[in-house]
C-alpha cells in the first residue's frame, strides 16, 4: 500500500482506478481519460495534487537563501503573492527538481515541490538552508487541489464569500493569496486558466464534492499528463533529471544568468555548457504517420545523429501523437522515430502544442 492523500477514500467512492505514482496511491482516471482531458479544455476539471509537497520557508534571510538555491532569480518577485517557476540544481547543473515558489512576505516564502522527489528535496533544502538560518517546514496539514479550465475560476468563486470571490477573481496570472482561509493561486499544469488551492486537508473531500456538484469534472493523473504535454510543460523524471541540465531540457528560459553577481548553485557548470553551446536540446515532435510516440523511443535525425523521446502520448485535442524529445542541437524539420522497428515520420515543432483550448501547431508549407 502506498501513501494516501486526504481524498483517497473519496476517489475510491467515485470509482477511480488507483495506480502507484511515486509511492502514492493516486487516481489515474475516473471514467474516460479522454473525456476528462476535454472537460479541462472545454469547461472545468478537478485534480487531487495533495501528494505534492508544500514547504514553508521562514526567516530574515529567506530571499538570499532562495537566490542561492534556485536557478531562476527570486529577486524577480517584487509584489507579495507573486510566484516563480524554477529548477533547483546540483553543482553539476543536473536538475534535483522543478518547483514553484511564492513570495508572501520578506520573511515568508512558500515552495511546492514534486511528490516523487519529496525526501531528497527536503534533505537538500534543509542542508542548504543551514547557512541562512531559514526555518523549513513541510505542510502536511494542507491538501491541494487544482481546478482548471475556462470555467474553473468562476466555479471556485461560487464556493467563496462575496468578498473572497472578488479577491480570487482579481488575482493576476501566477499570483496567489490567502482567501477565506485557503491559499488560492492562479497557476496550473494544463495550459488552461484556473486555480491551485491549498486548504486544510480535512476540508478537501467536502470542497471536492461541492465542485463536482457545480459541474466540475473529477480528473485523474492520466488526463493531467496529456494536458501538461499539450501545454508544453516538462515532467520531472521524464524530461529532465539529475543527469540532464536545464539548457538541454527546454528550460533555458528559467535560468537567470543576469545579474552575474548572483551565485546560484549550478551556475558555473551551466556557464561552461552555455559558452561551448549545449550539444543537445529538447524539442516538440508531432507524429505525421499513424502511431503513438512514447518515452524512450529512438529519434533518428538524418545526417546528424540520434535522440530519444522523453515524453510521448496521444493528444486528445489534436487527435494525433505528440512528444518531447532530446535531440542533437542541429536537429530541425523532419525526423524519424523508431516505433517497434518501423521508422515513422515526425516533425520538429515549437511547444506548446495547445494553449487555452486552441491548437498552436502551424501546418507546414511543404
Amino acid at each position, binding site marked *: 500500500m502506498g501513501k494516501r492523500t486526504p481524498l483517497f477514500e473519496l476517489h475510491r467512492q467515485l470509482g477511480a482506478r488507483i495506480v502507484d505514482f511515486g509511492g502514492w496511491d493516486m487516481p*489515474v*482516471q475516473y471514467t*474516460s*481519460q*479522454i473525456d476528462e482531458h476535454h472537460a479541462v479544455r472545454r469547461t472545468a476539471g478537478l485534480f487531487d495534487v495533495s501528494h505534492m509537497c508544500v514547504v514553508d520557508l521562514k526567516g530574515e534571510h529567506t530571499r538570499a537563501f532562495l537566490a542561492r538555491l534556485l536557478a531562476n532569480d527570486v529577486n524577480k518577485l517584487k509584489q507579495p503573492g507573486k510566484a516563480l517557476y524554477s529548477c533547483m540544481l546540483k553543482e553539476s547543473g543536473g536538475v534535483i527538481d522543478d518547483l514553484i515558489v511564492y513570495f508572501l512576505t520578506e520573511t515568508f516564502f512558500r515552495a511546492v515541490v514534486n511528490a516523487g522527489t519529496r525526501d531528497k528535496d527536503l534533505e537538500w533544502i534543509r542542508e542548504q538552508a543551514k547557512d541562512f538560518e531559514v526555518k523549513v517546514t513541510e505542510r502536511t496539514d494542507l491538501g491541494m487541489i487544482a481546478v482548471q479550465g475556462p470555467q474553473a475560476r468562476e466555479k471556485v468563486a461560487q464556493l467563496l464569500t462575496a468578498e473572497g470571490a472578488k479577491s480570487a477573481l482579481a488575482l493576476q496570472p501566477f499570483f496567489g493569496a490567502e482567501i477565506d482561509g485557503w491559499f488560492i493561486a492562479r497557476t496550473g499544469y494544463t495550459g488552461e486558466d484556473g486555480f491551485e488551492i491549498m486548504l486544510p486537508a480535512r476540508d478537501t473531500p467536502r470542497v471536492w464534492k461541492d465542485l463536482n456538484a457545480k459541474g466540475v469534472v473529477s480528473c485523474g493523473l*492520466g488526463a493531467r499528463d*496529456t494536458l501538461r504535454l499539450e501545454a508544453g510543460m516538462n515532467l520531472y523524471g521524464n524530461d529532465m533529471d539529475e543527469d540532464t541540465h536545464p539548457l538541454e531540457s527546454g528550460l533555458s528560459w528559467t535560468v537567470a544568468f543576469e545579474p552575474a553577481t548572483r551565485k546560484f548553485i549550478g551556475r558555473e557548470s551551466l556557464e561552461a555548457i552555455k559558452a561551448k553551446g549545449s550539444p543537445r536540446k529538447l524539442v516538440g515532435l508531432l507524429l505525421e504517420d*499513424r*502511431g*503513438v510516440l*512514447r518515452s524512450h523511443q529512438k529519434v533518428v535525425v538524418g545526417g546528424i545523429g540520434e535522440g530519444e523521446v522523453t515524453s510521448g*502520448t*496521444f493528444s*486528445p485535442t489534436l487527435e494525433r*501523437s505528440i512528444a518531447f524529445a532530446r535531440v542533437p542541437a542541429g536537429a530541425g524539420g523532419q525526423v524519424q522515430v523508431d516505433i*517497434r522497428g518501423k521508422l515513422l515520420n515526425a516533425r520538429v515543432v515549437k511547444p506548446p502544442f495547445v494553449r487555452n483550448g486552441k491548437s498552436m501547431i502551424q501546418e507546414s508549407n511543404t
Partner: protein
Amino acid sequence: MSNVPTDLKYTKSHEWVRNLADGIVEIGITDHAQHALGDLVFVDVPEAGRKVTAGEACAVVESVKAASDVYSPVAGEVTAGNPDLATTPEAINEDPFGKGWLMRLRPASSAALASLMSAADYEALLKEEGA
C-alpha cells in the same frame, strides 16, 4: 462487471475467439481487456496472408496510457484485419465483441480451438485476477 458472452472461446491473455462459417475464426480483445486499457487511440492489425503461430504477437492496441500486444490464440493464416479500426479505434471500447474485432484467420488445425478457455473458465480467471 465485465461482459463475457457464452458463445465465445477465450485466452488467459484476454483475447476472444468466435467460430465463423467456413472454418474461419474471428479474434478480438475482451471487454475486461478494453476496460483495463482505457480509451484506445491506435490499433495495428495484421495483413491478410500473414501466417501466425499460437501465442505470437500479431496486433498492437494502444490506449492513451500504453501500448499492448495482442497474441494470436491459435496458429493459422490471417484472412483479414479489421480495416475500420484505423479510423475508429474506439470501436474496441464501445463494442469489443462486435465492431471491435481485430482479425480473422483460418486455423492450421481445427482441433486448436478445443484447447481454449470456455466462458465459464474465463470468468473464473477474471475472478482470480480480482477483476
